[in-house]
């Protein structure tokens, strides 16, 4: 396994470089540029700005910025928020998104796995019904609807002191947006867990264990869960990357200064450096989490062999 991990780590920079190039090409092709404001811009002014930011042509951009990533670890200045470098922006907003994402994932996993398992164990019972409702609501309701509903909840007079609107920094601030963000992953996890748990519960070793006299709780929670968790794990890899780098909708509705808004804003303002910066962060998260998930497979189920040659 160490060889597999090493191999994957070596692939990382190559994949990131390809992503960078493709994103840059797409960004360059899009009409519009970051320097035009609300009125027609004087060509002299435009040229001045382009020279200042090394954005006169694709070649000038590519010859200065990627090198700075490697030598200085800096993505350069944001072309739209000219006072701030992309690193500053990411440093300010990534921790916020990570916090929110961690909370949302924690709820999603705990509630999702719990409800899913109980749904499988008490099949056709109250929990099964609950799991079906959660999945339907979580998958069908768009996140901006749930976010807006929760936002309205916070402005109810009785709740006003508890949930401050639009602020960030106190422990209570993470609850509502976290809930809004967790619903969709929770829905998937409930269904995944239920399905795979049903599968595992039907296997022979479970019957043996129960026949041996082991309590149902120990059988389900200690033995079956580990086996049933594998599909959830494979979903968690990309889900973690997505959730931790911020959701545009939830952050916009709750006015959270996270990274999600920059994905959309940088495209709308054609801010190429910021766009590349956030895409790189997102790609890095995605690749690292997928690697972590693959490693976790082995820990969870030693029968799995993730070496590259295995089929």
């Amino acid at each position, binding site marked *: 396994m160490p060889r597999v991990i090493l191999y994957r780590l070596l692939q990382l920079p190559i994949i990131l470089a390809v992503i960078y190039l493709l994103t840059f090409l797409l960004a360059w092709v899009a009409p519009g540029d970051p320097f035009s404001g*609300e009125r027609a811009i004087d060509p002299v002014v435009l040229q001045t*700005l382009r020279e200042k930011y090394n954005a006169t042509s694709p070649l000038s951009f590519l010859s200065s910025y990627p090198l700075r990533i490697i030598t200085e670890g800096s993505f350069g200045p944001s072309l739209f928020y000219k006072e701030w470098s992309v690193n500053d922006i990411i440093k300010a907003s990534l921790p916020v998104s990570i916090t929110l994402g961690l909370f949302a994932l*924690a709820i999603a996993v705990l509630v999702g796995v719990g409800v899913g398992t109980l749904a499988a164990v008490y099949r056709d019972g109250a929990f099964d019904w609950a799991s079906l409702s959660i999945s339907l609501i979580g998958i069908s309701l768009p996140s901006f609807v749930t976010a807006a509903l929760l936002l309205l909840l916070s402005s109810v007079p009785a709740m006003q002191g508890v949930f401050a*609107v639009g602020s960030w920094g*106190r422990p209570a601030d*993470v609850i509502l947006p976290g809930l809004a963000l967790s619903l969709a992953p929770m829905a998937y996890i409930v269904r995944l867990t239920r399905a795979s748990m049903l599968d595992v519960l039907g296997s022979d070793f479970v019957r043996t264990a129960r026949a041996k006299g082991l309590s149902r709780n120990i059988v389900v*929670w*200690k033995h079956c869960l580990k086996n049933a968790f594998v599909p959830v794990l494979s979903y968690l890899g990309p889900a973690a990357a997505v959730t931790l780098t911020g959701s545009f909708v939830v952050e916009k509705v709750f006015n959270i200064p996270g990274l999600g808004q920059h994905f959309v804003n940088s495209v709308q303002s054609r801010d190429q450096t910021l766009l590349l910066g956030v895409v790189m962060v997102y790609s890095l998260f995605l690749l690292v989490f997928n690697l972590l998930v693959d490693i976790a497979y082995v820990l969870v189920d030693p029968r799995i062999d993730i070496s590259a040659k295995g089929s």
Partner: protein
Amino acid sequence: MLRLASIPIGLMLLVLGALFWSGSGKARKADFTFINRGDIITLDLNLMSYQQDFRLTYAIREGLYCPDPETYEPIPAGAESHEVSPDGRVWTFHLRKSAKWSNGDPVTAHDYIFSWRRFFEEPGEYTYLFYYIKNAKAYETSYTSGEPIDIRSVGMEAVDDYTFRLTLNDPVTFLLDLVAFPPFYPRNERSMTAFRDFNDKPMMNLVGDYLAKQQKDIKKLTQAEILAELPGFAAQNTSADTKAAVAKMIRYGSIKHTYLNEYTRPPNVVTNGPFMLTEWEFKRRLWLEKSPTYWDRDAVHVNTIEMVVNDNVLSQFLQYEAGTVDWLADITTDLASELRARGRTDLRASKAFGTAFLTLMCKPQLPKSIFNGAKNPLADQRVRQALAMSIDKKFITERVTRMGEEVATTYFPPGTLPGFETLPGLPFDVAKAQSLLAEAGYPKGKGFPALPILYNSDNPTRARIVQVLKEQWKQNLGIDVEIESQELKIYRNRVTEKDYAIAMVAWYGDYPDVSTFTDKYLSTSLQNDSAWANMQFDQLCDDATKEADAAKRMLILQKAEALIDTEVPIVPLYHYVNCSMRRDYVKGIKENPRNLTVFKGLRLDKAGSNGAN
């Protein structure tokens, strides 16, 4: 089971830890909290163009003259007094000796020259305002080409540290309003030297080494001081190329450089206004504190101001409702019309210095993308007039925008500039419109092509208005238009590149004079999206520039404005209304057409906490 429980507990601890790591630190309440229009885009005077940036600049910086907190007329600020020569071309400003920067340095005439020079050497959006100054345009063009003329030939001169003399090309009757506008504010060069970025880095590194040997830090010297050291540098054993480059710099008196925008961020930023910017947390808040070095600090009644950054319209309103914010500087008409219907007393609305209008393509051929460049029916003035006279604008302001906006028959908003009156434009007259259209060759709309009408997709009000227009033109003239919505940047590109037939646009005035509206439609103007060219209009505007008598000038401009309103290269729809939410105890912020905020006059009349001096 305990091992299992350790997972959720561990996760929760992680989350709490992360929350503290990303939290916004100290929770303190400022004397005055407000939400600006959105986020600050930039505080660099050269690059500033958004209204929220200007609003904050009025709090932290000041110019020769500044808007009065009550009347918004320009009153002495950085300058104590001024004199004008009889022909109106030479203005001498006497600077206030007690005016200081936030780091204690005195504000001198050199600071103004430095800041204004930056506009020529690094052209920005408002560089065109400086063209009134003698030789300013010549200097800018020559500097860009690499062979600048002598900076001292430009009409701005520091007679001494506290006397600033301006020589203009033509008499500019509204100069005091211009110098009260942020692009004309001074900047402190020495505080910015650490952020200077030379164009010729290799050579300036050598200069830096040379200076270091003499115990001088190049990052702390002004451009003038470096130029003084250059002969000594060149006299050393340097290559012929370097000697030539240095000789060039000395001859032109300038070393090409730019400034990294970080100079506008605390703690490095040095300003001269009533407040100082002490903290700037990206996308969260800006924190202002009363400046202890400001010359008029006794007149500033508030100690701390917090600007909360909130881009989301609904979230902004909820924050205001929750009571954490004293003033919501701008709200959308959608929200405002709802609140107005509910009779909210803290909703403030006032006529704005801006107009919503349709811009019409006046070129003889349509752009290539529309019917392959066919003949343009809008090139005929009668067609444009027909379009203008067949719109029931009252319907739009009463049913769509619903904020009590004034219907517009003129491009310039009437009543927003004392001393200027607009002549009435085209009325709503369907019969006349139909006969004009018939005269132009499209009786009852037959044969009229279905032109596209363009707007930006993120504006729901415009989406509704174009629907109404389509309906009204169909009903009143019998013509069809196709509705086309585009994303904001693409829409702007299309309009500025004149790749449209009809588009919904807006224009706000920058400074209190008619020229901020009329200059847009000069045949030579970059902003003339209609490609309308009327020699008589150009001549009138030129005459107005040369007219020294203010009243006569207004009459000339009235004629020019009337040309726009009768030949209708643009169809004015309505004049905007500025809407904001302000609590009753917030005093000193008076709603005004240009949406100016003079923070110096801010007072909070809460019982007890009045903001001590």
